[in-house]
């Protein structure tokens, strides 16, 4: 029999064992199941909350931003506009916030048993993706209803590229999340910043307003927010709302992949010794 595991003091930054993560795929499924089982234990409405949450927030956005603030939605049905924006943003934000505490929140388990730590953030992203899937079903239903009512909903044939944008959003979210979690093992300041940072980020992203509402001279600033083209892109791909900027999409792609790869490598490095510092 051959040696199967090698424990060494120093490992390179790029020394990462992804096959092991695949071997633990059942654990990812267990963690996802645990999340959904635990979230709705001892609630009256149970899994109904999964549907209610996105519907209620989209309804409130419609009320506040269209009903009261009269922000344009580029002529698209307001409810559909907010449901789409909210679904994608929630997915991205949940990837960040649920992963931001990976090390500190799981110190108990991580201190007692070994499994590839990446299993944790991947399960969190899967949970976010399932929530996004539920929202997508709701959005489809809403879109069909609007179409039947003749409210001018047309589906963009480019929608086949949608999974690419969603994947990029997931990678960016997980990347940012695990970078935060890796850094917070030593410096706790970031934990405080995540909650309100994500709120600020949302307002800097066209979630509750379209890009067309931004004065031309500020639009260049949007380039520095890699989430903006993703949000705008998803709406464009689905319903042809707004426009799509090739430069913006390229920036987002580079950012998402870059932050993801760097995040995974940093996470992989920190997991070796973080038990000595938490």
């Amino acid at each position, binding site marked *: *029999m*051959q*040696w*199967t*595991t*090698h*424990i*060494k*003091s120093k*490992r390179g930054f790029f020394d990462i064992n992804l096959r092991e993560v695949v071997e*633990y795929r*059942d*654990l990812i*499924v*267990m*963690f996802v199941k*645990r999340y959904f*089982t*635990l979230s709705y*234990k*001892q609630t009256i409405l149970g899994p109904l909350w999964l549907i209610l949450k996105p519907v209620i927030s989209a309804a409130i956005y419609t009320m506040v931003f269209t009903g009261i603030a009269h922000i344009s939605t580029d002529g698209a049905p307001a409810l559909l506009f907010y449901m789409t924006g909210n679904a994608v943003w929630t997915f991205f934000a949940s990837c960040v916030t649920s992963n931001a505490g990976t090390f500190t929140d799981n110190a*108990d*388990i*991580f*201190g*007692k*048993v*070994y*499994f590839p730590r990446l299993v944790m953030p991947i399960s969190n992203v899967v949970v976010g993706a399932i929530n996004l899937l539920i929202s997508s079903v709701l959005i489809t239903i809403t879109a069909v209803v609007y179409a039947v009512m003749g409210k001018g909903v047309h589906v963009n044939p480019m929608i086949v590229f949608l999974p690419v944008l969603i994947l990029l959003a997931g990678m960016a979210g997980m990347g940012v999340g695990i970078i935060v979690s890796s850094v917070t*093992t*030593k*410096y706790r300041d970031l934990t405080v910043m995540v909650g309100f940072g994500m709120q600020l980020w949302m307002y800097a992203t066209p979630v509750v307003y379209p890009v067309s509402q931004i004065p031309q001279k500020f639009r260049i600033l949007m380039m520095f927010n890699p989430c903006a083209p993703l949000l705008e892109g998803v709406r464009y791909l689905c319903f042809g709302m707004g426009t799509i900027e090739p430069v913006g999409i390229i920036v987002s792609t580079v950012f998402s992949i870059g932050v993801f790869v760097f995040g995974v490598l940093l996470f992989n490095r920190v997991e*070796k*010794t973080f*038990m*000595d*510092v*938490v």
Partner: protein
Amino acid sequence: MPHTNNVQGAEPVIEIENLKKQYRLGSIGGRTLREDVHSWWERKHGRDDGSGDTFMALDGIDLTVYKADALGIVGSNGAGKSTLLKILSRITAPTEGEVRIKGRIASMLEVGTGFHKELTGRENIYLNGAILGMSKAEIDRKMDDIISFSECEKFIDTPVKRYSSGMYVKLAFSVAAHLDSEILIMDEVLAVGDMKFQKKCIDKMTEISKKEGRTILYVSHNMATIKSLCNRCIVLDKGKLVFNGDTQDAVRLYLDNVPSDKMSVDYDNILRPSWLCRDDVRIKRAWYENRESSIFKSGEPLLVNAEWENIKDVQKLCFRIEITGSDDNPCATACVYDFYDGSSGDKANRGFKVDTSMLAPGRYRTMYTFFLRGNLNESIDVDCMQGLDFEIEADGIQRLKWVNKNWGDCILPDIEVM
């Protein structure tokens, strides 16, 4: 029990080479970015970074473990046992050195890791099994065995928050005992459940190593379990391997040498046990004053001095000395209640006089524990350390040569005939 180490041709499954683990003493992890930058700057310019003392939890361990070994690991608190297991289980990385392993390792440094109280027994088996590295198919296949071993059939679909603590550990242990891994690492987990279940656990472990030819690494303070389970034993002391060989010899060495014949002991560099969640006071030092040896005449009171530091403000501090006789179980304990109030940062020392006239002649080990009393008069331990040994020497006027092995270490007052 057959002695299988150094058997010609036995296949090594773990090879440890010059393994070292260094911890930084003091504010571990509590440093700010500014301090880190400063320390990095100083080191870059070849100066001492001023980050204070370091501590070698493991200091150059070399060890080979063979297939089907049941290896016991003993040593006093702070000897490096847990650190060794943590490195082997890949929870933390070594500072220096290398480990090579053949096959899967399953480590149980605690039973029921990842158990969630809201989930049912069955759901927890799946979750815990997956955390320990089993696939779903594997768990499905073993589900019935696990449930029947745990003796929790009736409650298997009840949330574990309704379980008694006994049932909880039984279920948790059953999952771990059914792992298929080639190497099993365990930290004192057999000390769970009632006596009957403990026996069942040990039988199961023996079966795993003897019949199935798998390797077990077992850490314990309980010499009785070590003796019945392990065919080979290592003794660690201050991060170094001081003995490697026969279990009986190792146990003898450990019992005789913890902390041996010393007249004083320094606790500054000793990491506290992980189950101790409180850190109100820290015992710094203990010593016998004005004595030449730790041998006390029968009837002479045991006088021990201790110095401690208050980490927090303390009120109504209590202290107890647990006395352990030849069979490694405590045989007597003496307490003092509410003897001290103090504020954080203060150091204090006291002499403690214990009447040991009821102890039979023999050699005893001790455990010093500072504690506070909770609302229900329960003991909240705030620091706990292996104390100094002492010996009671028979005096000339003893009425009977006491047989500790058969009669126990404690001599009650003579019987009155009514």
